[in-house]
């Protein structure tokens, strides 16, 4: 199992080594030590690898991820898993702002809290935060699911398009055009699937969550109101 010490190898060399791996590589398990808050660790992966990072990482860890599983045994700085396409990113500590921003697919799991703008402009990624999320989370979210076991900060789902938001704790305010919606069986089943995928198999009651989404008043052109535009 390749073991990379970032005290002796540059992030650029680590990433280049990970990018060189073919899809059918046998070197699928990687360990990275001493990240010491460095930026862009394990970005742009495009193979079914598992990269486990021991320590806190800086900006943009696991950005643009495809197919790979990236595990951070620590906290992540701003923009973790930004624009991820598929695979899984699992932060065992807290994540800073804009976690999972613009993500198109895959699963981002944060065991701790995520700060402001979690899931901003998400486009299909699933995000499960076991703690709280900060203000303006799911801002302009377009598709995908954001699940929050703790509280959500102010202006949740501001200017949201079609993403689904599930929050178990207190929501400190909904943003423009974000409303609470009924939690029907299909939503409970979807939430159950997401919680299971995040490793919470059966330990969390889906009935304790409330669902939020778009009122669809903001982004449609209303012909009846053409005179107002």
């Amino acid at each position, binding site marked *: 199992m390749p073991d990379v010490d970032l005290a002796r190898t540059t992030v650029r060399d680590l990433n280049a080594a990970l990018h060189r791996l073919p899809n059918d590589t046998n070197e699928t398990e990687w360990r990275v030590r001493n990240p010491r*808050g460095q930026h862009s660790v394990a970005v742009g992966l495009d193979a079914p690898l598992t990269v486990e990072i021991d320590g806190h990482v800086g900006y943009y860890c696991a950005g643009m991820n495809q197919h790979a599983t990236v595990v951070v045994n620590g906290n992540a700085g701003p923009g973790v898993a930004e624009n991820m396409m598929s695979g899984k990113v699992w932060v065992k500590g807290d994540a800073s702002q804009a976690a999972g921003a613009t993500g198109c697919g895959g699963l981002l799991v944060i065991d701790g809290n995520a700060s402001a703008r979690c899931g901003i402009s998400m486009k299909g990624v699933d995000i499960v935060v076991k703690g709280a999320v900060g203000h303006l989370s799911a801002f302009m979210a377009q598709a995908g699911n954001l699940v929050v076991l703790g509280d959500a900060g102010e202006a949740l789902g501001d200017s949201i398009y079609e993403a689904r938001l599930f929050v178990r704790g207190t929501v400190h305010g909904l943003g423009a055009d974000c409303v609470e919606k009924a939690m029907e069986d299909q939503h409970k089943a979807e939430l159950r699937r997401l919680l299971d995928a995040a490793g919470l198999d059966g330990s969390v009651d889906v009935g304790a969550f409330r669902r939020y989404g778009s009122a669809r008043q903001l982004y449609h052109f209303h012909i009846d109101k053409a005179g107002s535009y």
Partner: protein
Amino acid sequence: MCGIAGLFLKDRTLEGDLGVLLAGMLAPLSDRGPDSTGFAVYGKAEQGALKLTLRGPRSLDVEALLHRLGEAVGGPVAHRRHDTHVVVTIPADREAAARQALRASPDVSIVGSGRRMELFKEVGRPDDVARRFGLNRMGGTHAIGHTRMATESAVTTDGAHPFTTGDDQCLVHNGSLSNHNAVRRDLIREGLTFQTENDSEVAAGFITSQLRGGRSLEQAMEASLAALDGFYTFVIGTEAGFGVLRDPIACKPAVMAETERWVAFGTEYRALVDLPGIEGARVWEPAPARVYRWELH
């Protein structure tokens, strides 16, 4: 951009290492702020004495300056030279006379004053500026540093942080304020004076004004949430206090860490990685619009 590093020691046995630790925190922030670097160090106070940190040109005749100051304050003046800065210690009750004497030297500016605070800032990268000032040899209870990427005003020493607007008070800022001109006018009306057109100096002045009005550091920081508009992460030093405040939108990054021995602030975690015991520290992102402060007992 810009980078901030702040360290407040709870364990007094670390006081001799304060400068080394701060220098180690500032160096990784070089790429967030390569234009200028500054820091304030809260060292030992002497009974009845006031420290003035002065800055002058490299060609400054320090002996002549000390002679003039000595005549003004009525006795010899202890001093330490740090590159372009000189820290002089004068009797606190002779401050007015010392300032009067310094007005006769237009190439000398007073960078900071206080019982404990010494303040250094220059154009340059943090490792270079720290080395020129001898930060590694400085000790104390708390220190605040800043690496600047200039956005709102020119790359000059005057535009470098920390900003100080009162004895033993300083502030560093990452961000930009949008209502600083209006707040500056109000503060000037109150009697405060400003050395620059910089937005961050206004934030320092606002805190000074609040403290002079009898408010605590905590109350002063609460009041600035209502009075100051814009983006900011502030780290604030007073003679006995260390405060952190982020604006409600909190765009500017911030990380804090705490152990039994110290509390530290870094714009990024990279600034904190060499602190003793960081592996076991509680590391968290300070919440928006929440006042954090620690005081010496």
